[in-house]
C-alpha cells in the first residue's frame, strides 16, 4: 500500500485510522512528502486540548493515562495518545510497551494510540512529537495525551507545548524531586503522588507542596498536589477535578490559543536553525576549512576559539 500524499491527507482529515497512521510514519521519518502533509494539515490544528503526562520510570504514568483515557472516552470524547519511550543511543532500538496498559478501551474509532521512540532526541520527547500531535489534532481528536519518561526542564515546551502538564510521582520519588526540582516545579500544572497506599505518600505530597510554595507561579494558577492510586482508582475523581479546573483556567486566560502560536514560533526557530546549520556545515566541508582547522588544532598551532571565529567570519563574508 503506497497511497499518495493527497489520499493520505484526505483520509486523515476524515479521521481514517490507517491514513493517520501512515501519515504519522511519513512525518516521523521526515519523508520527502512530510512537509506537504504538515503544511496541508496545519490550518486544521489548534482544536484539541493537549495534556502532557511526565514523571520518572515506574511511577505509573501509563496506568494513570489509561484510566484517564477511559474516563474521557466514557464522556464521549475522542482521544489520541502519544506514548514516547527512549531509544537506545547505542543500537537505536526501543521497546515500546505502553499499549499493554490500554486493553480495557474498546475497539473504537474515537481512540488512537501511537508509540514513539525518542530516536536520538536528548530529552524525554522525540523530535517530531509536536508534529505527530498536530496530525492527531487535525484528524479531529478532542483530547491529546502525550506520555513521556523523565522530568526535565523543557521537555514539554516549545514545539510540543501542551495546555496542561501532569507530573506523576510516587512516595519513593524523594530523590528525583531533589534532583529535578529546578525544572519540575515550573513545568507541572497538576502534581500527583501515585501509589498513595504506600508508606510515605503523605510526606511526599507535603514535600512537593512546600517546594511549590517556594516558587509560586505568577500566572494565577496554584498547582494542586493529588494523592491517588491510578491502579485502584482511589481518589481519581480528585485528579479529574484538578484537570478540569486547570483547563478552565487555561481557556479563560487566553492561553489555549496562545500556545498554538507558541508552538508555531518554536517550529519556525527549529527549522531555520536546522537548515542554517546544515548550510553552514555543507559549505565548510566543501571549502575544507573545518578539516584544515582540525589539522591545525592537532598540530597545536591554534585554539578551538580562534578557529570557530575564523570559520564564522569566512561564512559571513561568503554569504554576501
Amino acid at each position: 500500500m503506497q497511497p499518495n500524499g493527497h489520499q493520505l491527507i484526505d483520509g486523515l482529515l476524515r479521521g481514517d485510522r490507517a491514513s493517520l497512521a501512515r501519515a504519522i510514519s511519513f512525518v516521523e521519518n521526515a519523508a520527502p512528502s512530510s512537509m506537504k502533509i504538515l503544511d496541508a494539515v496545519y490550518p486544521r490544528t489548534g482544536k484539541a486540548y493537549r495534556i502532557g503526562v511526565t514523571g520518572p520510570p515506574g511511577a505509573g504514568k501509563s496506568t494513570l493515562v489509561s484510566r484517564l483515557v477511559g474516563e474521557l472516552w466514557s464522556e464521549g470524547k475522542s482521544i489520541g495518545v502519544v506514548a514516547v519511550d527512549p531509544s537506545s543511543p547505542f543500537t537505536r532500538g526501543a521497546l515500546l510497551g505502553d499499549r499493554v496498559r490500554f486493553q480495557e478501551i474498546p475497539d473504537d474509532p474515537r481512540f488512537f494510540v501511537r508509540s514513539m521512540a525518542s530516536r536520538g532526541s536528548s530529552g524525554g520527547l522525540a523530535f517530531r512529537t509536536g508534529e505527530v500531535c498536530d496530525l492527531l489534532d487535525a484528524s479531529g481528536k478532542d483530547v491529546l495525551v502525550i506520555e513521556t519518561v523523565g522530568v526535565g526542564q523543557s521537555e514539554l515546551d516549545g514545539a510540543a507545548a501542551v495546555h496542561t502538564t501532569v507530573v506523576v510521582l510516587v512516595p519513593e520519588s524523594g530523590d528525583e524531586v531533589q534532583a529535578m526540582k529546578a525544572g519540575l516545579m515550573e513545568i507541572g500544572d497538576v502534581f500527583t503522588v501515585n501509589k498513595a497506599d504506600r508508606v510515605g505518600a503523605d510526606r511526599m505530597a507535603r514535600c512537593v507542596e512546600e517546594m511549590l510554595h517556594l516558587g509560586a507561579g505568577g500566572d494565577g494558577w496554584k498547582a494542586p498536589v493529588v494523592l491517588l492510586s491510578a491502579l485502584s482508582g482511589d481518589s481519581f475523581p480528585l485528579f479529574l477535578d484538578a484537570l478540569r479546573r486547570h483547563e478552565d483556567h487555561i481557556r479563560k486566560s487566553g492561553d489555549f490559543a496562545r500556545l498554538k502560536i507558541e508552538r508555531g514560533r518554536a517550529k519556525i526557530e527549529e527549522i531555520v536553525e536546522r537548515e542554517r546549520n546544515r548550510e553552514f556545515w555543507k559549505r565548510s566541508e566543501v571549502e575544507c576549512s573545518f578539516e584544515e582547522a582540525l589539522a591545525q588544532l592537532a598540530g597545536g598551532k591554534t585554539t578551538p576559539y580562534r578557529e570557530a571565529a575564523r570559520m564564522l567570519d569566512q561564512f559571513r563574508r561568503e554569504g554576501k
Partner: protein
Amino acid sequence: MDRPIRVLVGKVGLDGHDRGVKVVASALRDAGMEVIYTGLHQTPENVVRAAVEEDVEVVAISILSGAHMTLFPRLLELLRENGRDDILLCGGGIIPEKDRLALEKIGVGALFGPGTDTTEIVSYLEEEVKKRRAR
C-alpha cells in the same frame, strides 16, 4: 531510507507463557528495531488494530496453545481486510512441521520453533524488510 524496523511483538489467545516472547522482543530491540510489545492474551482484532495504528512492517506472534491453525489465518484475514496485507506476519511457538508448511502456503512468513537462536530471527527480519522496502 535508513530508519529503524518497526515490529509488533505479542501473544494471541489464551496461553500465558510469555518468557520466550519477551526474550525475542529484547533481542529485536538490541538489534536496533523499534519493538511495540502488546503483551498477553490479545485477540487477533486487537493485534491488527495495533499493527495498523503503529504502522509496523512486521507482526511477530508467539502461540504456544496449539491454536495456531485458527489464529494465524485469522490474523492474515484481518490484515487483508484492513488493507495491510503488505505487513509481514511471522511468529513462533510449538508448531508441527505439517502445520508450518500449510501456514507458509497461505502467506504466513517464517515460524520459529523453541531453541531458535535469536540472531537467526534478527537476520530473517532484516532481510525480509529490506526486500519489502525495495518494492
